[in-house]
């Protein structure tokens, strides 16, 4: 047993560190520190910097721009990104549609989309969920009816994150009603400027506009935009959802938040804003969180190591998703508790905090509210537990 990184891994970490120190623009870093809302421009700008270094899509196959890193190197990279306050790239581009096209795309689709996706010349959104089909995704109804060399789409998607900025959508549509639910679903790519598409924003409780409803009214999509076989979109989607889940524990992010909490503890102690008793309570809570985070981190590393030896990491991804998201939520809850009544004021729309010197205070509560979503999307934590019960426990 050896829990330390090897010298080669440490050298790799230092290389990542020094790159991030030089390449991450200060204003972006500050936004991340303040928990300010990142705009499309912010994410595009950063992903292009990473892409220029060859690090935007590291887990794609090497022929499409990926890096042949070991699972441990990948882990180190993710952690260093989070600790440096670097934004994540667009998950829809990097973790979802990119890998799917690498695997299922036609040569023409690869040619047309992959490089543009890595560089976010195309901004993607994910059209899976519908009002009646959330956890039960296979019950989706939005139809794609073949008409010559086009599909004609009618129906509605919901919760489509960033659809207002998207150039393209990848989505699931029903091409057949006759067999088992899963069988009549097809995976299509569509240009968001196609006539007949309406995007309507949904405001969330943190005051932001990230989610949308998308309506389809006789939207014509060329048949060449089908990914995989007609009616076999479910296989493509399952592959994609597996990828969506794998990065979702975000230990690096929780570590970064923990270090922020420690800094806050020191700051509030020094300024006398914490009464003696409060200091003890806070210290205990932070220690408890550290215990849980350390356990989660080592569990993730065990999964990473098992992955390196070709072990089955799939159901483990569900464990990491549940525990990782609970950890992220606990962190934001602690910051909100610390802000207390001073954190009551809601930042103005667009994420400006009320008082720039007190950025963390103003951002604390909205961040806590918005983080409630991580246990809902990407397959809710209840659904993850169902998966664990079925695949690991055989229940």
């Amino acid at each position, binding site marked *: 047993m050896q829990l330390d990184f090897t010298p080669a891994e440490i050298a790799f970490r230092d290389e990542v560190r020094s790159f991030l120190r030089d390449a991450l623009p200060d204003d972006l870093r500050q936004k991340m520190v303040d928990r300010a809302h990142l705009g499309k421009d912010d994410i595009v700008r950063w992903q292009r910097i990473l892409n220029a270094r060859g690090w935007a899509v590291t887990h794609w196959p090497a022929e499409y721009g990926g890096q042949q890193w070991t699972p441990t190197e990948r882990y180190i990279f993710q952690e260093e990104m989070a600790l440096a306050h670097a934004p994540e790239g667009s998950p829809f581009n990097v973790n979802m549609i990119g890998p799917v096209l690498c695997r299922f795309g036609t040569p023409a689709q690869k040619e047309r989309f992959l490089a543009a996706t890595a560089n976010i010349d195309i901004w993607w959104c994910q059209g899976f969920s519908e009002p009646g089909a*959330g956890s039960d995704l296979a*019950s989706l109804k939005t139809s794609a009816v073949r008409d010559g060399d086009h599909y004609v789409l009618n129906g509605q998607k919901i919760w489509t994150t960033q659809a207002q900025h998207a150039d393209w959508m990848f989505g699931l549509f029903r091409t057949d009603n006759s067999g088992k639910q899963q069988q009549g679903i097809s995976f299509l790519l569509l240009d968001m400027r196609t006539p007949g598409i309406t995007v309507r924003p949904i405001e969330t*409780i943190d005051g932001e506009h990230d989610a949308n409803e998308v309506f389809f009214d006789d939207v014509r999509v060329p048949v060449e935009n089908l990914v995989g076989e007609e009616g076999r979109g479910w296989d493509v989607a399952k592959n994609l959802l597996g990828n969506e889940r794998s990065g979702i524990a975000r230990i690096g992010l929780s570590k970064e938040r923990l270090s922020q909490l420690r800094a806050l503890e020191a700051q509030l102690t020094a300024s*006398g*804003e914490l*009464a003696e008793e*409060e200091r003890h309570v806070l210290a205990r809570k932070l220690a408890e969180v550290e215990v849980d985070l350390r356990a989660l981190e080592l569990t993730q590393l065990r999964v990473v190591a098992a992955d390196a030896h070709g072990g089955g990491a799939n159901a483990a991804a569900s464990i990491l998703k549940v525990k990782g998201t609970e950890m992220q939520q606990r962190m934001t809850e602690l910051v909100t*508790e610390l802000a*207390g009544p001073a954190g009551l004021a809601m930042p103005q729309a667009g994420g400006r905090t009320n008082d720039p010197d007190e950025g963390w205070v103003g951002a604390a509560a909205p961040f806590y509210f918005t983080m409630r979503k991580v246990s*809902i999307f990407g397959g809710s934590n209840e659904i993850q537990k169902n998966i664990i019960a079925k695949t690991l426990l055989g229940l």
Partner: protein
Amino acid sequence: MDFELTDEQTMLSETVTRLVAESYDFQQREHALRSDTGWSREAYASFAEMGLLGLPFAEEDGGIGGGGVEMMLVMEAVGRGLMVEPFFATVVLAGGVLRRAASAAQRAAILPGVIAGDTILALAHSEPGLPRHSLDARVVARHTGDGWTLDGHKIAVIHGQSADHLVVSALSDAGVSLFLVERDAPGVTISAARGYDGIPIASLALADVGLPASALIGSDGEGAAILERVFEEANAALVAEAVGAMAETFDVTLDYLKTRQQFGTAIGSFQALQHRAVEMLMQLELSRSMAILAAVSLDIDPGQRARNVSAAKALIGKSGRIIGQEAVQMHGAIGITSEYKVGHAFKRLTAIDALLGDRDFHISRLVALRGVYPAAA
């Protein structure tokens, strides 16, 4: 033991619950939130018409002389409707200070307007840089001539923007003292914001604000004691409001569990959710018990009163979180949209925990008081 309400109390509860249900549905609340002031004069006026704004005030001040139980019933209805109107700020907080400590002249000058719904009050106590739930103040009160001058900064002043009169805590030579400040007095600057729970709040800058001697409430240096007492009543009211918000959240969630279909069945048929809904119900009932305890404790001996109120506030801090978080989670994505009530209830429950001492604060207070139960004789 008797947990029954009197006939009058039952009637009060029914009328105020009906008033809120009929005149303050979610759309009307949204509408109020979007207005300039962020709350509805009309809804507030209907409270005045029912005499609710006079509830805790003495009959000789034009009030009704109601007690903790009456306040609990009204606040529960306020919580059910997630009302953002200044009832708590005006009647319970600042009004509580006036009721407990103001001179007859001060009461006569201000309370009739309060009871009629024409006058809005706010309490400015929290300050940046002080421990979060402290009774201290750093705003400076200096004797000048036969009056006072105030200097300093306040935050989280609930409904500060709409207030006609502010009750401001400040530190004089004698200790923390309370003052009446007119909102348009020279040197007073109010910056308005919205709380994440929708309720308007403000910060307050006081620069050389000159006050007459008659602005002092109670005696010089008595402020912390007055506030401690008023905060106990206010906490009992917040606990009741939380119970209302939790009850509403629970009802909405239960309804959703019965109607939302996934995998060809109502999601409420999944045992994983059933047990959690049961836990929510149990937390709600425990909270209700503690709201009753707090409400009937307001006039008992101070030591036990403090224990009971802190126990109640600590408990609802926890159950508010459980119920709020579970309601959002069990609704799935719809739970975190601002078009849907449970997300707002979750936010209000979060704010209630943060106000006047959160769960940790009240648990620590109970540690200092050596527990909830009276010491064995």
